[in-house]
């Protein structure tokens, strides 16, 4: 028998347990005993003794008990039962003796029985309601506390249902929250229900049949021949009765059903369904929440797995610049994160477009493919539809396909296509994961491309560097050698490997170290290289020999303009140096050899001029005067040449000490005022300033600068000399003239040896191009610097600085007597 249950009845909780049966039996027994005693008492005719009132009051007990356990209706029924007897007795007594206290007492007891029935039932109802509420709350809390675990929730519901209905077994047919497949869950097993078409007979199993029912029902006598079950000859015996209650989501959709089974015993009835109601109401909510948890957990786990796979692949992609490896890694990861069976990567956009065109010829709805092609061509992300097969399947049996474009900076690099033999195999999650992967793949592909380009450039640069005839050494900022080109290897005799990591000091020496044979700390060489002030170094070769190299140093800076290394380019100039040295020595020798006879010639000429002036004719005196002047000029030229030689060969004798520069300048100016009185020499006083300098050199510098100013300024003009102290403890000295000035292009070269400014007066003004050269060498030797500021037609200003003498040094040294410059 199949009977649907009236839903209105499901709200009425009723339980009929062992205790109820005991109470009923006790009540009936009490009534029975009471009736027997009453009857026997009546038979004995002892109505007047006190037994009857006691018995009458005793009727309150069964009335109260019945009302307490079964409600006011049952209590009133029992009260009526007793009162029916009492009223008969009351009628008989009133006929016999009229109204009396006994009859009034009889009436009162009748009323009391009804009152007791009502009051006790009301109390009982309140207690039972509260108890039921407490039990319901307890069950609900017990269920909700298990909502995070579907197995615990189902286990609790099954156990509760079995106990509540005294059933042999209980089961839940539940839609799997992860895949939507129906599953049959019992207390110890869980297995999926086969799809209706999977059975060979085409018939439904009882479980499948129950899933299709949407209302509560009970099935009775399933073991009867006329039941809805097919008999199984010699097989298992069908259950006796079955009760099923649908489980629903909060939105009313089907969640599954709860099935309670009795193998033996009694059939289920409608009252049994009411027992299940509270449990089901709480249970279906808990099942829904547990399913939600399960789905959330699964989705999170799936995402975590996908992200972990993508992260792992990305790590490998980032360290891999081989295109073949990138493709293999991408395919493996794409198949793993989407659950696909196969996959393809198309890296040529032309091929992709060709495939789309091919596909577009086959399908009737071409809009999706046209959108895809448009997106690829425009470099935008296409809107992909789930139910479309975008490209011709690459593999047989494919029924679903997912595509993600590999795009980088608006450019489509290709596409990843994964395929599966199951329809609708890909969802938004797999699409999202595939898209995330392709983002990383795009970066990896670009990195690989950049790496390839860098490799090519590196090869080209390597070839260029290898082809350079000059030596090239790179080092870090601390001076440790990183690389050497073949020319450097050839020049030094070392291989790049043998010098890698060693300090530049092992290769290069400063020239004065060679001369003094005194090793300077490595920092000095490094500082010189970093400052760029060195242009010539000695290279120490592997076999102990040395060579002189001109050096060009450039710092290597990073993105933040922070220097991180040095590039040292050097060229072997040993032969040139030797030639220069020989040349200088030759010049020095010539000068020296010519200076002595020239001095004698000059002396003789001057003596002749003094002693024989009155004996000579005018023409002879003029020739003699010319001879004296030319010998003096030649002597000055030779002096300068010798000075240059001494300075360049470091044989110039410097005595650096504190000197009051203002006195030196005044004395020099006084000399020049006498020598060329037609110029206006102006000295801007600024007090006594002490400098660290060599006195003779200082005279020479000042004389050279004033000589230069006089030479290139028209007569009668003003030559101004000034000096001042700077905050960095240096003294600036400037010589400013009102001459023709120096062109800008010549200003950088006027301190070079033998350089003279091209111009109309270059040949008019007598000079050798050595004065400023010597001046610069002297200033530099005194740890000073010299420069020029000039504009054509505006005059020139030569400025040099010297270190200021410290006060302690000044106090130790006595102020010197000013001397003649001696030239």
């Amino acid at each position: 028998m199949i009977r649907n249950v009236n839903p209105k009845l499901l709200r009425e909780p009723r339980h009929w347990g062992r205790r109820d049966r005991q109470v009923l039996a006790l009540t009936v027994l009490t009534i029975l005993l009471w009736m027997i005693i009453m009857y026997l008492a009546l038979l004995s005719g002892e109505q007047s003794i006190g037994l009857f009132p006691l018995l009458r009051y005793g009727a309150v007990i069964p009335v109260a008990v019945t009302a307490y356990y079964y409600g006011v209706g049952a209590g009133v029924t029992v009260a009526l039962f007793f009162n029916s007897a009492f009223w008969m007795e009351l009628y008989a007594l009133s006929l016999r003796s009229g109204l009396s206290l006994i009859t009034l007492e009889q009436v009162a007891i009748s009323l009391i029985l009804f009152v007791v029935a009502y009051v006790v039932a009301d109390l009982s109802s309140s207690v039972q309601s509260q108890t039921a509420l407490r039990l319901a709350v307890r069950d609900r809390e017990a269920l909700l506390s298990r909502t995070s675990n579907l197995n615990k929730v189902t286990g609790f519901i099954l156990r509760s249902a079995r106990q509540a209905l005294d059933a042999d077994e209980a089961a839940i047919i539940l839609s799997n929250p992860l895949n939507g497949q129906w599953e049959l869950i019992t207390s110890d097993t869980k297995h999926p229900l086969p799809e209706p078409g999977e059975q060979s007979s085409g018939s439904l199993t009882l479980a499948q049949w129950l899933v299709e029912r949407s209302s509560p029902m009970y099935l009775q006598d399933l073991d009867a021949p006329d039941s809805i079950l097919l008999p199984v000859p010699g097989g298992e015996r069908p259950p006796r009765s079955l009760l099923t209650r649908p489980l629903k989501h909060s939105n009313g959709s089907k969640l599954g059903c709860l099935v309670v089974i009795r193998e033996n015993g009694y059939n289920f009835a409608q009252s049994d369904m009411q027992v299940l109601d509270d449990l089901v109401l709480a249970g279906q909510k808990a099942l829904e929440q547990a399913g939600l948890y399960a789905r959330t957990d699964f989705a999170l786990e799936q995402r975590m797995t996908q992200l972990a796979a993508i992260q792992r692949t990305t790590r490998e992609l980032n360290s891999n610049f081989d295109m073949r490896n990138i493709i293999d890694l991408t395919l493996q990861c794409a198949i793993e994160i989407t659950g696909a069976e196969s996959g393809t990567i198309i890296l040529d956009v032309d091929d992709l477009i060709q495939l789309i065109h091919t596909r577009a010829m086959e399908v009737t709805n071409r809009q999706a493919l046209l959108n895809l092609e448009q997106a690829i061509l425009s470099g935008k992300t296409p809107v992909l539809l789930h139910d479309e097969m975008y490209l011709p399947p690459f593999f047989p049996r494919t029924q679903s396909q997912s595509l993600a474009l590999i795009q980088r900076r608006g450019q489509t690099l290709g596409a990843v296509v994964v395929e599966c033999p199951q329809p609708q195999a890909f969802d938004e999650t797999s699409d999202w994961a595939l898209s995330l992967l392709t983002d990383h793949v795009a970066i990896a592909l670009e990195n690989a491309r950049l790496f390839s380009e860098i490799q090519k450039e590196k090869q080209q640069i390597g070839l260029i560097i290898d082809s350079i005839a000059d030596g090239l050494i790179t080092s870090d900022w601390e001076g440790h050698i990183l690389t050497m080109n073949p020319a450097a290897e050839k020049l030094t005799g070392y291989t790049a490997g043998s010098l890698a990591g060693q300090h530049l000091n092992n290769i290069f020496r400063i020239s004065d170290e060679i001369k003094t044979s005194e090793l300077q700390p490595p920092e000095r060489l490094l500082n010189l290289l970093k400052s760029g002030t060195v242009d010539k170094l000695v290279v120490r070769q592997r076999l102990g020999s040395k060579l002189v190299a001109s050096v060009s140093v450039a710092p290597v800076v990073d993105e933040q303009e922070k220097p991180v290394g040095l590039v040292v380019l050097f060229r072997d100039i040993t032969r040139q140096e030797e030639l220069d040295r020989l040349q200088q020595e030759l010049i020095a020798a010539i000068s020296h050899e010519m200076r002595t006879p020239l001095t004698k010639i000059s002396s003789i000429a001057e003596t002749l001029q003094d002693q024989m002036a009155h004996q000579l004719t005018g023409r002879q005196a003029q020739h003699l005067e010319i001879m004296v002047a030319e010998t003096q000029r030649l002597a000055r030229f030779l002096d300068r040449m010798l000075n240059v030689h001494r300075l360049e060969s470091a044989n110039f004798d410097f005595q650096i000490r504190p000197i009051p520069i203002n006195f030196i300048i005044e004395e020099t100016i006084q000399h020049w005022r006498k020598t060329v009185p037609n110029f206006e020499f102006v000295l801007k006083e600024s007090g006594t300033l002490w400098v660290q300098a060599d006195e003779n050199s200082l005279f020479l510098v000042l004389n050279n600068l004033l000589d230069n100013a006089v030479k290139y300024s028209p007569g009668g003009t003003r030559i101004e000399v000034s000096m001042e102290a700077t905050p960095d403890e240096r003294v600036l000295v400037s010589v400013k003239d009102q001459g023709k000035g120096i062109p800008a292009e010549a200003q950088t070269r006027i301190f070079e040896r033998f350089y003279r400014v091209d111009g109309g007066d270059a040949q008019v003004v007598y000079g050798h191009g050595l004065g400023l050269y010597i001046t610069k060498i002297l200033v530099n030797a005194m740890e000073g610097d010299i420069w020029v500021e000039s504009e054509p037609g505006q005059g020139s200003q030569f400025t040099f600085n010297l270190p200021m003498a410290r006060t302690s040094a000044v106090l130790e040294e006595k102020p010197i007597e000013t001397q003649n410059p001696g030239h």
Partner: protein
Amino acid sequence: MSGLNLTVRRDWQEQLYRKMTENTHLWRTGQVLILLSAVLVFCITLLNLPRLWVNVLRFSLSWSLFLGFALWTLYRRSRGRVTLSLLLIPILFALAASAAYLDPRVPQGVSDILPYWAVVISLIIPAVSWSIMLPILSRHPVEARRLGLHVNEWLPNVVIGAMSGGALAVHLLFITEFLPGDAVARLGFSESALFWSFSLLAGLWVPAEEFLFRGLGFHLLFEEAGNSYWNTTLRITVLNVLLYLVLALYTPSITLGLVVLVYRTGLSLINVFLLYRRKSLLPCMVANLVFTFVMMQLFPL
């Protein structure tokens, strides 16, 4: 959970429809039978026949017919049901006639001629009756179970039935103390009367009444047709009391007739409740046996 893997008939809807149709037909037949019985018994009482013949016809047309119909519902699908019916009907009528003949209230009956043998012979009635019923019940256990005929928890069922019937009987005894003297026709609690009453009730009356009204009626109306409890109870009780209404008319006192009707109504209500709660016909049969046994000692039914 192998039961859920059993296969459902493809024609389960037709199967259910057939069953429903059959149940409707069965219940209609039962109702017609009860009404016909009541009418026939009423007619017999008007014919002024001798008490013996009235009893024979009354027992045959009521209890024998009801019991036969109830038993037929059990074996109606089995082979040889016609043969079994042909054998069963004369036996049941014979039992009814025997019971009528052994009635101690019948003048010149067996109880007067062979008072001691009457006791022995009366015990043959339940013996024969149950020796026929038990094989039928055991051969059709599912059908018997549907009528509530099983021995599960038999001891509590017997106790509950005895207490329920006993309570109602004691109440009846108490009430009769206040009834007019002519309303009560006591049997005198003689041994032959006790044995006869027991035999008639146990062999014929109680099985017939309970199998048909509570067993078949409750099953068809409540379990199969899905009527509510009170609807089922009222319909069963009305049909059950209908028979006693005829008997009440037959009784010499109106007071007696009313008391009988009231208490039979009460018994019907109690028995339906016992069947509903206990899911067994055994307490109903015991309650009916106890109460009717006491009532028969008081009233000449």
